[in-house]
């Protein structure tokens, strides 16, 4: 970490955050479960097999946006992280940090949404905590959730298990959440309203696992977008990953907004999308299972895992419709709109 103070970029989901995690948190907390580098830690619990545990904090502003609010994110984010391990997600905790003066009506709406989303996901919120800080000590409401589930015997999903030839599946169109937040935050209008995709994906994951029993891993491309997820997989598995740009679903309004703002849609956050790496011979079955799910209708096979040429580092490549290729990097720093 070259920087002597925490910068916003340290929370972006890109390279700066990765370095902070690698060089500070992993250095001091480096349990084997954490070092596995997946979205949920999987560990043995005497007498009950293995559990998956994950936690996430939500600080989004605005707290209400097209397609949801911070409460829906707080449930979906943690449910999805636990589910990526292949666990049956069972229970959530939630901690609220509230700013003095926050409207009670808004808090009620958030809590109601959390209850509805938990019911939709089939999980129960079984413990919580509330703290109130002085005005100015927080920005309205922050929520932390943790989730736990049991990992069925024999399930060993990990980003380190990608093999050359595997297919890369994406459960739907990219960028809806990030652009919905951005347009709400900055008062930008893009003709068509862009709605956050926040959704619990544990049922979609379960369906894919049933259809493709040898699925290697899942990850939800949240902050840092598809670019971060694929680079994490490539690095963990020491492989190359190639995606076809034309195969990646993106809604027109999001594509237009990204061009206007100068964003790469492959680096924009999603809250209701899942990437799955699946052996080639199970790819079609996995795709069919995704598409049959209410949150996977636009799912697509977007690329494949490839052998790493000897002496080369892990890499993610994007191929255009006319045959040129480029490297797809993780986001650097925070995502900033361009200025001309």
């Amino acid at each position, binding site marked *: 970490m070259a920087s002597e103070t925490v910068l916003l970029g340290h929370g972006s989901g890109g390279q700066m955050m990765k370095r902070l995690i690698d060089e500070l948190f992993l250095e001091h907390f480096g349990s084997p479960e954490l070092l596995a580098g997946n979205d949920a830690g999987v560990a043995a619990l005497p007498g009950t097999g293995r559990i998956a545990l994950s936690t996430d904090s939500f600080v989004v502003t605005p707290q209400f946006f097209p397609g949801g609010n911070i409460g829906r994110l707080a449930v979906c984010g943690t449910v999805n992280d636990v589910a990526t391990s292949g666990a049956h997600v069972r229970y959530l905790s939630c901690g609220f940090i509230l700013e003095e003066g926050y409207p009670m009506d808004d808090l009620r709406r958030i809590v109601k949404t959390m209850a509805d989303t938990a019911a939709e996901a089939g999980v129960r919120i079984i413990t919580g905590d509330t703290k109130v800080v002085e005005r100015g000590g927080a920005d309205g409401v922050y929520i932390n959730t943790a989730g736990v589930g049991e990992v069925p015997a024999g399930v060993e999903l990990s980003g380190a298990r990608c093999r050359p030839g595997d297919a890369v599946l994406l459960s739907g169109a990219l960028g809806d959440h990030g652009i919905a937040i951005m347009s709400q935050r900055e008062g930008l209008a893009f003709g068509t309203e862009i709605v956050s995709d926040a959704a619990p994906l544990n049922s979609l994951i379960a369906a894919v696992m049933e259809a493709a029993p040898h699925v290697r891993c899942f990850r939800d491309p949240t902050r840092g977008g598809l670019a971060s997820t694929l680079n994490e997989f490539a690095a963990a598995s020491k492989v190359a990953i190639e995606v076809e740009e034309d195969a990646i679903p993106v809604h027109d309004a999001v594509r237009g907004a990204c*061009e206007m703002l100068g964003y790469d849609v492959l680096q924009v956050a999603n809250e209701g999308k899942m990437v799955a790496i699946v052996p080639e011979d199970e790819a079609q079955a996995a795709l069919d299972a995704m598409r049959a799910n209410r949150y996977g209708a636009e799912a697509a096979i977007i690329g494949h895992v490839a052998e790493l040429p000897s002496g080369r580092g892990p890499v993610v490549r994007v191929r255009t419709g*006319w045959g*040129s290729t480029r490297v797809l990097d993780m986001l650097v720093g925070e995502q900033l709109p*361009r200025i*001309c």
Partner: protein
Amino acid sequence: MSAPAKTAPNIDFGAFRDPALVRGLIGRIERIVGDRPINLMEVCGTHTVSIGRYGFRSIMPTGLRLLSGPGCPVCVTANRDIDYAIALARQEGVIIATFGDMMRVPGSTSSLRAEKAAGHDIRIVYSPLDALRIAEEQSEREIVFLSVGFETTTPAIAASILEASERELTNFSVFAANKMTPPALRAIADDPETRIDGFILPGHVSTITGIEPYRFLVDEFSIPGVVTGFEPVDILEGIEMLARMVVEGKPRIENAYLRGVSADGNRVARELATQVFEPCDATWRGLGKLPQSGLRIRQEFARFDASQRFDVAIEPTVEPRGCRCGDVLRGRIAPTGCPLFGTACTPEHPVGPCMVSSEGSCAAYFRYREE
């Protein structure tokens, strides 16, 4: 920001990305160029990014080089101007508002991002009108908008100053480092160390300027130019037209972006800019001092001119050692020709401004590099 035409509902943008059309154009360019050496320069940062993203450099004929010019407003901002902004940010009671890309540009010893983390109040805005809103909300603070940009951005800055004047705001000012494109093109056309055979002229800037200001390229330097849009088919069409003019030895200024640019541009926007700004000599990073290439706020609006309002001490300018942003901006070398590229200088730890801005040549080359 991009031209609004991009989101116009009645244009089918799929056609501008049609792979078959793209491949056809690439084939035509190959046949025109053959094995001739031709240097084309794109002078708009958005073109640099698009060419990178579409991977065009890797599939052009061997002799056809696409060089990136001084088209990123952040990149051409002089080190001293960044230092001035940093000095302003350190003033008690001042809120700095600026475009996001300015945050990470290294000055001589600091950056706005570092100053923000150190507790100074620096805010990212999307429009100078947002800075006006802050000024109204925080009447006890001084709001300074750091303005960089070319002809596309200047009218909006002018509008914000007129609006501030209308609302009689007394705590709003602008530090203007705005610049004009044609003088930079002249400097490059005139540079004995750079040989440019044709210019891919900026699409967005030309919506304001029209095509007249580029005539001197043909009249004085016999260099052709084509105003070009940003979709894959747009860019290849521009390249094809330029290649043909170069090969035939018949330089002209052409407009291939008819859906966005009219021959005489946007007169209303230009008048708005002229009402508030007047030309002045300006220092460009890499190009040095160019006569009548910058804009300063007219005396009539001096109360909104931060450089007249604040007398701050600026630290001595230190140019980053080994950084060749200047040569990159002039098209003397490609970003990959800089010894720091990708090693000491990366988007995470930029040494020079061309690695900072998303539209900077070095950042675009790094982001869309081939293996």
